[in-house]
C-alpha cells in the first residue's frame, strides 16, 4: 500500500504551523474589523506585505535587508529557547540573556573600544552567565526556571540601563552611535550589503545565525552530547541511572542557551542598526518573539530559520499599517495569537492521525468485505 504522506511527522508539523499562521492572521483581521472596518483589509495586507509595500525595487531590497538584520537576533533567541526546550527546560530567560548580550557588546565597544570579535565573545559570556545562574538554581536548588528566568530578565534590564547610561548621548536617552565612536566594533558586512542595495546593516550576522541553526541541529540529533542532553530532559532520574551527569547537563544546557541568546544581542546592536534606549521600561520583545518562532518552527532548528523570518516579517510589517486607525502592535497581537494556537499543535496532529486511522480502518473493512464476497463465489 502507498504510504500516506500525512503520516510523516515533519509534514504534520508543517500543516499544523500553517494552520496556526492562517488562524492567527484571520483572528488579527477580525480584531482589525472590530476596531475599524473600513481599513482592516488594507492593514492586514500591509502587515503581510512588509517591504513589498514599497513599489520601487531598490527600496524593496533595502527594506528586505532591514527585516533580515532583525531576523538574525530573533533566530538566535529562538534557537536558545529551542535548545533548552529539547532538554525539557523552558528558557523564558532568553529575553534577559539577549539584553545581557546587548549590554556587554555595546559597553565593550564604547567604553573600552574593543573590536567586533571580542565584543561578540563578551556578549556570549554575558548571556551564558545569566543562563548559568538559572541552571544552577534549577539543578541544585530546584527553582522553577521560568520564574527565575523572569526575575533575571528584569534584573538584567535594570542593570543594562544603569551601565549603558555611562555611554549614552548627553542629549538623548540613546547610546552613542558605534559608527562615530568606534567603527572597528561594527560587524563586517562581507559584501552582503551589495545584495541589498547598499544596506550596510546586513552583515556577518545573517550567515552566522543560519550556520548556528544548522550546528544546533547537528549537536542535538547527531552527537552523543546532544543525545545525553535530550535523555536528561526526558527523564532526569533515568539519565542519572545511566551514568549521565544530570545536574551538569542542566547547567550546561542553560549556559549554551544563554550564550545563543547573548550572541543574538550582539548580532543586532553591533550592526549599529539600533541604539539602546537607557530608559527602557519593559523587557524587549525579541526574546519573547523567539518563543513564538520556536514553536511555530515545529521545534526543529531548520524550521526555526523560516519561522523566525516569518515572525520578523510580520513584526516589521506592523510598521506599515495606517497609524490614523491602528497601531503597529497589531503584529505583536498576531504573533501572540500564533503562540497560543501552537499550544493546540499536539491536538491538531492527533486529529490528523486519528483521521488517517479512521479512513484506513474503513478501507481495510471494505477490502475484507470484498475478499469475503470473492471467497463465497
Amino acid at each position, binding site marked *: 500500500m502507498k504510504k500516506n504522506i500525512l503520516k510523516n511527522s515533519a509534514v504534520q508539523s508543517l500543516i499544523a504551523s500553517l494552520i496556526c499562521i492562517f488562524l492567527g492572521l484571520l483572528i488579527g483581521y477580525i*480584531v482589525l474589523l472590530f*476596531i*475599524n472596518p473600513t481599513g482592516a483589509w488594507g492593514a492586514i495586507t500591509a502587515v503581510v506585505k512588509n517591504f513589498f509595500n514599497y513599489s520601487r525595487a531598490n527600496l524593496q531590497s533595502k527594506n528586505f535587508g532591514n527585516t533580515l538584520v532583525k531576523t538574525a537576533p530573533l533566530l538566535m533567541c529562538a534557537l536558545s529557547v529551542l535548545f533548552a526546550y529539547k532538554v525539557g527546560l*523552558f528558557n*523564558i530567560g532568553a529575553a534577559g540573556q539577549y539584553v545581557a548580550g546587548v549590554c556587554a557588546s555595546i559597553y565593550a565597544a564604547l567604553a573600552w573600544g574593543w573590536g567586533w570579535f571580542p565584543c561578540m565573545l563578551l556578549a556570549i559570556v554575558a548571556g551564558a552567565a545569566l543562563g548559568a545562574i538559572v541552571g544552577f*538554581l534549577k539543578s541544585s*536548588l*530546584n*527553582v*522553577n526556571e*521560568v*520564574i*527565575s528566568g*523572569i*526575575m*533575571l*530578565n*528584569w*534584573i538584567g534590564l*535594570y*542593570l543594562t*540601563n*544603569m551601565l549603558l547610561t555611562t555611554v549614552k548621548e548627553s542629549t538623548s536617552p540613546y547610546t552613542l552611535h558605534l559608527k562615530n565612536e568606534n567603527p572597528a566594533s561594527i560587524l563586517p558586512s562581507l559584501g552582503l550589503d551589495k545584495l541589498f542595495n547598499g544596506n550596510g546593516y546586513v552583515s556577518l550576522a545573517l550567515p552566522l545565525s543560519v550556520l548556528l541553526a544548522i550546528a544546533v541541529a547537528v549537536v542535538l540529533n547527531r552527537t552523543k552530547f546532544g543525545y545525553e542532553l535530550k535523555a536528561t530532559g526526558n527523564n532526569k532520574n533515568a539519565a542519572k541511572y545511566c551514568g549521565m551527569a544530570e545536574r551538569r547537563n542542566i547547567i550546561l544546557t542553560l549556559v549554551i542557551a544563554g550564550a545563543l541568546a547573548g550572541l543574538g544581542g550582539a548580532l543586532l546592536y553591533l550592526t549599529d542598526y539600533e541604539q539602546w534606549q537607557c530608559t527602557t*521600561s*519593559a523587557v524587549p*520583545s525579541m526574546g*519573547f518573539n523567539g*518563543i*513564538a518562532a520556536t*514553536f511555530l518552527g515545529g521545534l526543529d532548528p531548520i524550521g526555526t530559520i523560516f519561522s523566525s523570518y516569518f515572525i520578523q516579517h510580520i513584526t516589521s510589517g506592523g510598521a506599515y499599517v495606517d*497609524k*490614523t*486607525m*491602528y*497601531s503597529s*502592535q*497589531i503584529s*505583536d*497581537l498576531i*504573533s*501572540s*495569537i500564533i*503562540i*497560543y494556537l*501552537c*499550544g*493546540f499543535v*499536539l*491536538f491538531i496532529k492527533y486529529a490528523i492521525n486519528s483521521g488517517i486511522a479512521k479512513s484506513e480502518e474503513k478501507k481495510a473493512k471494505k477490502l475484507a468485505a470484498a475478499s469475503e464476497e470473492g471467497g463465497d463465489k
Partner: protein
Amino acid sequence: MLLLVQYTLIFASVLSLVALGGCFSEHSGVINLGLEGIMVIGALGGALMMRYAPAGIPAFVMVLLVLLAAILAGMLFSALLAVACINFKADQTIVGTALNMLGLAAATVFVKAINTAANPDDVSSTIQYVEQKKAFLVNINGFEFNWFMLIALLMLVLAYIILYKTRFGLRLMACGEHPQAADSVGINVYKMRWSGVLISGMLGGLGGICYILAGVSEWKFENGVAGFGFLSLAVMIFGQWKPTRIGLAALLFGFFRALSNVYFGFPGLVALNIPGSVYNMMPYIISLIVLAFTSRNSRAPKAEGIPYEKGMR
C-alpha cells in the same frame, strides 16, 4: 514612614490577591503562568469602566462597578487558558506565556484604538483616571487607605475558609494532588480545574486593577504590569501554597517594592547614594534569593502541570 507603610500595604494587597489566584489554580492542578496577562486584562477592564462610567455616580457604586469589570475581564481571559489546558491538554507553560504576550498586545492595540478614535493625534496607550481613583481612597490623617487593602485581607480569610473548611475546596485540592483518585470517588476533575482557573482569573483581574490604582492615576498599557504576575508566583511558592503564609510573604515582597517608590523620602537611604535602578531591582533579587532557599522543599501540588486524561493511570 507612613508613606512606606501605605505603599507596602497596597503592593502587598496586589501580590496577595494574585498569588491567591495562582494558589487556587495550582491546587486544582493547572499551573497558571498567564497571571501577568490576566492582570493586564483585568486592569484594562477596570480602567475602561472608570473611563466610561457616568460622572457623579456615588463612590460606592463606582468601586463596585470597577471591581466587577476587572473580575469579569480576568475571568473571560483566563477561560482561554482553561479551554486550551484542560480540554485540549495543551502545554501549560506555552499557553501561559502566550496569554502574557496576548494580554499585553491586546490591551495596547485596544487602548490605542480607543485613544486614536477619540482624538486622531493621540497615539498613546494611556488611560487616565485622576478623578475616578478618588472613589477608592479614604484619607485617615495623611494615611491613604485604599479599599483594596480590605478586599485583599477579606480574600485571604475567604481563601483559607474555602480551601480548608468547605467541601468544594477540599475537592479542588484533591484534583491537584491525585486527580485519578478524585475521579474515582465521583468528583468531576475537569469541572474542578475549570473552577480553579476561573477563580485565578477573578483574583488576577482584581490584582491587576489594584496594581494600576496603587500610587499612580494614569496607566500606560504598553508597559504591562512589570513582572508582577511572576512576582506573585514567587510569593505563592514562598508561601508554600498556603493562604496565611502567602499573606506574610506578600508583606515582605511588598515592602521591597514600596522602597523603590519612597526611598528618596528617607535621608539615610539617600545618603547611601545608591542609584534608583538598584531599588527597582530589589523585589526581583529578593525573590530569587527567597526562591533559592525555599524551592528545595517545595510542597507544590503533586499533579500540577499534568493534563488530566480519564483513561490514564
